[in-house]
């Protein structure tokens, strides 16, 4: 443990001695904020020896919008759409976390049918997020084609979102207390169609990558992080699970209706990029399992709990977190009894996971930095908020 902290703490000396860096073998280059492989506006300052990475420093905040400040100036209801803009590839998960946190603070609960709808949409969103990850990650490693395959199939999920709530990306699907919309006619059929449609597509992705020699060489033993390091660095989600820690908030502290479903938590053993790939691929299959159970067992009933028109939680504070596709997404809300949060803190998984980049890439090559950024699956909208 101490070892980890030392490595994570060791400061980078990014000063270039006397501007003659070409003289020595050390090269400081700026990866980003405009760079094709930094997934947005991440800027990584790399200190290189030839192509070997001696150290990194992340410069973030280019997309900072002050979401937490905005929250203090909006009512609980008005703030709901803002959370979609953090991790915009998993907007549904963000909404679920926020709505559940406020519900918990108000001590109300969504009705079972709403919970099932939430589970279905959130798991679909998890698949969509993982698809986007897979496509961009493969593109970073040089395989162009999976990107187009995943976008093709992600379209089916977005169509379901669009039919359900009108939006495709920033869905704003849930409301505090339940769901705004009843499922549309044919929702279940659409979801079931997707359940039949998607498994062969996962096989297709895997046929392209899983046993591909180059893919194996590029991902095996790259960006290795141990489970203990993950915990010390607060890394959660598939990255933690790929390091062999079987921990998923859906099982550990079930929320929504997850306690009613039967699914497994896929884990890896080596904690390398390849294991993270396998874990996410397996998670997509598990998500399909959950969706299948949910859509078959979806109960009838109201979709909105008994919440007042004006959301006014009592004085107090609450922390609620869910398992977002990237890791633990938490909301810490302090209420002063008014209609606006007194303080709303988002615990963003991408932000915390990104911290592990440095110890994951030290000693690797530039090409691996790209692979590791891809495998961390960060979304800069969430890192910077």
């Amino acid at each position: 443990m101490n070892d980890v902290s030392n490595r994570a703490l060791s400061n980078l000396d990014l000063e270039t001695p006397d501007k003659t860096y070409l003289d020595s073998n050390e090269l400081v280059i700026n990866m980003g904020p405009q760079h094709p492989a930094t997934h947005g506006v991440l800027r990584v300052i790399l200190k290189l020896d030839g192509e070997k990475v001696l150290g990194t420093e992340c410069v973030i905040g280019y997309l900072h919008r002050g979401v937490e400040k905005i929250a203090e100036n909006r009512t609980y209801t008005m703030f709901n759409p803002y959370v979609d803009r953090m991790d915009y590839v998993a907007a549904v998960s963000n909404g679920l976390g926020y709505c559940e946190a406020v519900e918990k603070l108000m001590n109300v609960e969504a009705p079972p049918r709403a919970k099932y709808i939430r589970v279905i949409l959130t798991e679909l969103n998890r698949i969509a997020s993982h698809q986007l990850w897979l496509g961009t990650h493969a593109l970073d490693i040089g395989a162009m084609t999976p990107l187009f395959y995943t976008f093709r199939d992600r379209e089916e999920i977005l169509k379901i979102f669009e039919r359900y709530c009108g939006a495709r990306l920033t869905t704003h699907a849930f409301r505090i207390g339940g769901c705004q919309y009843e499922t549309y006619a044919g929702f279940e059929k659409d979801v079931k169609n997707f359940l039949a449609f998607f498994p062969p597509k996962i096989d297709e992705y895997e046929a392209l990558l899983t046993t591909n020699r180059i893919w194996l060489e590029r991902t095996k033993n790259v960006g290795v992080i141990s489970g203990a390091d993950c915990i010390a660095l607060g890394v959660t989600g598939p990255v933690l699970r790929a390091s062999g820690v079987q921990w998923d908030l859906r099982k550990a502290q079930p929320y929504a209706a997850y306690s009613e479903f039967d699914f497994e938590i896929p884990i890896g053993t080596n904690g390398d990029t390849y294991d993270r790939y396998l874990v996410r691929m397996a998670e997509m299959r598990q998500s399909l399992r959950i969706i299948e159970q949910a859509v078959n067992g979806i109960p009838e009933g109201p979709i909105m709990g008994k919440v007042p028109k004006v959301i006014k939680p009592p004085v107090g504070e609450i922390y609620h977190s869910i398992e977002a596709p990237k890791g633990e997404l938490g909301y810490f809300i302090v209420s002063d009894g008014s209609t606006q949060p007194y303080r709303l803190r988002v615990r963003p998984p991408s932000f915390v996971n990104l911290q592990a980049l440095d110890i994951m890439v030290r000693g690797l090559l530039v090409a691996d930095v790209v692979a590791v950024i891809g495998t961390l699956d960060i979304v800069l909208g969430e890192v910077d908020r």
Partner: protein
Amino acid sequence: MAEEVKSPAPPPPPEGEKKPAAEKPAPAASAAPAKPAAPAKPAAPAKPAGPVPVPWTSPLVEKYRSQYGSGLEAQTYLGQNYFTVDRSLIPDILRLLRDEEQFDYCVDITAAHYPKREKQFDVVWILYSFPRNERVRVKTQIADGASIPSSVSIWPTANWLEREVYDMFGIQFDGHPDLKRILLPDGWKGYPLRKDYGILQQDKEWVQINLGIESGQ
């Protein structure tokens, strides 16, 4: 422009922090559910007061209370446990929580600003224990300008989290290896998540110098 736009309804400095101490023994049993958020929904609009914090009793708390006495309060609110501890106890408590109670995962570090209070800031650690599958929050109050020991040596993950708190609230963390702004640019003046920082406020000087525009709005 800078100051006129305050939050539309300036929230009163909540006394939520004081209240629990006063009402601690009172109607606890009726309102506070034991573990999950209870299905019993309060008929919300009528009753202003919801559930209130109740004392948290567990061997863990007893142990610490006997060790530290009055500097430490343990409470439960809506099934979530938290300590309110004196600032001086912070490094000890955090280290003990990790080393002896297996709270090996620091989920989050954050703060809240109460400008009308004497000790203006609440600093909150949200901890989780993998072996116990249990969360606990540790809260402390500090005054503006006061510093607080860094917990980076306890949980490496605290590095960026503390930097963000510093960035947003201006709270100093002693012993942090690299305490500088993280989300805002380095030369920025002001700490945006303080309550006296308006939502439209910005560091105009920085914007004009670095972006070459009059205003970022």
